[in-house]
């Protein structure tokens, strides 16, 4: 029976069933999304909404009726207005923006390089890929610990190596700019394997015959790269970029074990500032929530922008 006949049969015979199937198809995407949205709502979005609500009050983290000081006091948008006069917040925000601007492109470039290097399906490459993926298997805390050891001024491997070359110990973690560089290095290193895998998955989706055709045409490797590889790799690059921005803006664990925000307060980024405001200062949970609100808005805007750019080109 040909496809056309089949279709007519379906449309005619049992239009109720046909309608239901049509309705089924229309509601199918909602059904597919239901588990994800339900779980996210329960465990993340609903608490986040409560967090945003918190930002309209002056309060501590916990409200206990028997403790009068813990009762929230409504302050409207005061917390938000206060933010831009708050030196700690502004400094940590700018510092974070700088970090994102440097670290994310660096990580994209590194991941791309690694992916191109290790994409061919050889056993040797599989071994190297596993090695490169290693940092992504360990928590940010341990990554920070490892690099803290490598960069330690008095007992670290990097300075020990330098001392063998006669270079005096470099205070990697104890000088403002050097500490920031150390964090960028550790962060890029930590995410390289993860992003490399994403790009490799994307690379393999590119049809081989395109490359064959280019080779037959005698196209230079560079042109092949820019005209074929990069454009077709775009969905994966977008993933790396979007996730990278989201992750870099919220960098925290690595910093805690690498520098604890030091030297002094030179590497206190946005999230650490939020936590300190919430946990260390009395009754400032509302302010911390406002800071989180600002972070949320920034990330939402950036994500939308990045996706828009893609959509326009695609």
């Amino acid at each position, binding site marked *: 029976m040909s496809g056309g006949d089949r279709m007519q049969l379906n449309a005619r015979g049992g239009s109720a069933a046909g309608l239901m199937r049509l309705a089924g198809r229309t509601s199918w995407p909602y059904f597919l999304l239901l588990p994800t949205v339900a779980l996210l709502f329960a465990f993340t979005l609903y608490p986040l909404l409560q967090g945003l609500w918190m930002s309209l009050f002056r309060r501590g983290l*916990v409200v206990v009726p028997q403790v009068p000081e813990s009762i929230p006091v409504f302050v409207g948008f005061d917390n938000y207005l206060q933010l831009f006069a708050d030196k700690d917040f502004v400094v940590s925000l700018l510092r974070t923006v700088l970090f994102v601007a440097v670290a994310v492109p660096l990580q994209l470039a590194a991941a791309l390089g690694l992916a191109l290097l290790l994409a061919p399906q050889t056993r040797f490459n599989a071994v190297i890929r596993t090695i490169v993926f290693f940092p992504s298997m360990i928590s940010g805390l341990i990554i920070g610990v490892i690099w803290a050891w490598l960069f330690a001024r*008095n007992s670290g491997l990097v300075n020990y190596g330098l001392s063998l070359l006669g270079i005096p110990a470099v205070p990697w973690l*104890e000088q403002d700019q050097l500490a920031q560089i150390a964090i960028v290095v550790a962060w890029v290193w930590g995410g390289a394997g993860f992003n490399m895998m994403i790009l490799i998955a994307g690379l393999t989706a590119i049809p081989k015959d395109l490359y064959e055709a280019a080779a037959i045409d005698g196209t230079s490797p560079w042109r092949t790269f820019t005209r074929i590889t990069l454009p077709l790799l775009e969905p994966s690059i977008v993933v790396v970029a979007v996730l990278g921005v989201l992750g870099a803006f919220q960098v925290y664990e690595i910093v805690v074990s690498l520098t604890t*925000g*030091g030297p002094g307060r030179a590497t206190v980024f946005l999230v650490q500032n939020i936590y300190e405001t919430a946990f260390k200062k009395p009754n400032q949970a509302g302010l911390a929530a406002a800071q989180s609100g600002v972070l949320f808005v920034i990330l939402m805007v950036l994500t939308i922008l990045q996706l828009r750019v893609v959509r326009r080109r695609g």
Partner: protein
Amino acid sequence: MNFIRNTAMALVAATALATPVVASELQLGWYVDSDEQEQKLRTLLAEYTKLHPETTFDLQITPYDGMSEKFRQYAASGIMPDVSLTSSMEPVVRPFLVDWAKVNGKDWIDQFVKGWADGARLGDQVIAAPLDVTAVGIFYNVDAFNKAGIPLPQAGASWDDVLPVLKQVSEKSGIRFPLVWDVSAHRYLTYQFQYGNHIYSEDAPVKVAMDDANWVKVLKQFVKITEDYMPPGLWSGSSSDKPYDMFLNQQAVAYMSGSWQIGSFNDSATFKWQAGPTPKGTVSSSNVGGNYLVAFNTSKHLDEAEAFVTWITSPDVQAEYARTFGLLPANKLAPAVAYSSPDASAAVKGFQQDLENSPRYAATDQAWPEMQAGVWDAVKASVTSVVSGQMTPEDAVASVHKAAEAAIAASH
């Protein structure tokens, strides 16, 4: 069909809810520093069960850093254990704490080391039972002194006397650094105490009692010490040098830490060590610390919980507790403790003396609940900011002053 479903749901509910309740199983929240500590604790608890067979224990171990978050969860959810170890009492959890003055009488608290006991008071109430105390003090690597042929510092020596000696010892014995110091606000504050500075008034009503000019002078002295005698950058706030490991690995001649190290030095040190005498500034001062036990008044086994805490803080049991864990007993009436080694016993005695001889403000500063509201962090940040060149000493001390004021404002 229904029967199976109901049974299944009941099973799910049973496993989803709390573990089955045995007659008087007390839930204990606790933090430990090592597996050995946990084992010793379990042994101690088993001992209690032998004496009181109807009380068993469900030990819930939490990392120390997570304790304050746990307390917030208790306060917010109403779900809390029966007893918990803690080093401070969060404001939001105070309404749920058993008042020991009601349970054991209002004089009961007086048998404990005064500085630490004061921290358990809240107005007329006593909201915690002191379990053990710690004292800040210095440790010396005796082998290094012997190798350098220099005698150890004597009681009553000042920092000006001792520091150059440490440098000589380090040069002559080939040990890398003269001095390492725990990078903690608590240990730094001790140095300020030794020059007459403190944060809060000794008596109620609580007020900020900082002499800013003197604070700045002492801070500058301290920063100079970190530059001249300690590993470079130790107090920069991001150093990955670990004073404890450095002292244990014989990379430092002296280590400013506290009495809680006695146990681990006893076990792990491969050299002869001595605790104190701690150098003094214009006055001799240590700094008190330690642990409390709190009982929650939401407990379903309140009587057993109170009985347990009263037992473990009683003089004889305190002596045993102190000996087992290498800590100082909080109960002054505890009989003299014979620790596992003469070094340890001498060390403990020395620390207890130091605590006794400390000025009153060394105890009262910490006892004020306002200290918990961000003041510790401001103190530590003041030093690291100056060491790393981000703040002038004047600004740093001003920021501590500001934080201390903010803490008072927040709770009144």
